[in-house]
């Protein structure tokens, strides 16, 4: 499945959950019908064949819910998105630090900028260190 189709399917699953649920139900019901027919061909009575088909399928509602949930799951790997976020934070920290060092330090505004720069850089450092620790574990 292409990324575009995956994205369209994901949006569709959120926009039309009832339609997706009906589609899943139709698919699962087809399975039970096929199993029922196979059981009848083996010599079972229609009612018995249907009962056996439902039993061999398992929990129909649970399967239906699982399938619908998978359709609504975020389809892409979050790692590159997170990485992008960290890069954006680092860029922001750099920009803040650049602005801070170029401001006159004796004004309250300049001091405030410096404090913000220190806080952002500290946060970026801590996130980076945590990521590194997780990667080495």
């Amino acid at each position, binding site marked *: *499945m*292409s990324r575009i189709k*995956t994205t369209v399917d994901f949006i569709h699953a959120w926009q039309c959950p009832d339609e997706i649920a009906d*589609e*899943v139900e*139709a*698919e*699962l019901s*087809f*399975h039970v*019908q*096929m*199993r029922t*027919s196979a059981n009848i061909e083996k010599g079972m009575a229609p009612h018995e064949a249907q009962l056996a088909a439902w039993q*061999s*399928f*398992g*929990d*129909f509602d*649970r*399967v239906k819910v*699982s*399938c619908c949930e*998978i*359709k609504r*799951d975020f*389809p892409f790997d979050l790692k590159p998105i997170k990485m992008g976020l960290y890069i954006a934070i680092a860029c922001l920290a750099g920009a803040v630090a650049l602005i801070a060092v170029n401001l006159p330090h004796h004004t309250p505004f300049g001091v405030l900028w410096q404090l913000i720069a220190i806080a952002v850089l500290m946060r970026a450092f801590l996130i980076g260190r945590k990521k590194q620790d997780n990667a080495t574990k």
Partner: protein
Amino acid sequence: MSKAKAGLLQGTLDMLILKALFAGPLHGYGIGQRIAQISGDELKIEEGSLYPGLYRLERRGWIESEWDVSANNQRAKFYKLTRAGRKQLIIEEQNWERLASATMKALRAN
């Protein structure tokens, strides 16, 4: 191993689905039948558990689906292997062979 006790790991079921679709497009019921057939009826899976697996594999891009008309003239959703799915099947088979061989080696060790 008794048929009743033949439980399947998640990855194994995924591999079996890919293998079942290797021969051509099938609907969910057909995939279950094909797995039973290629395993000589040794692997019995709870039929419903097949579907979340199919949806996951489709999400990963290893299989794709399309509604069509089945042999008995009913509307059914057919699945087929994608190019990425074929590559994945080869990887899964190689991994499985390595794992099986290493496990056998460990079991035969004195």
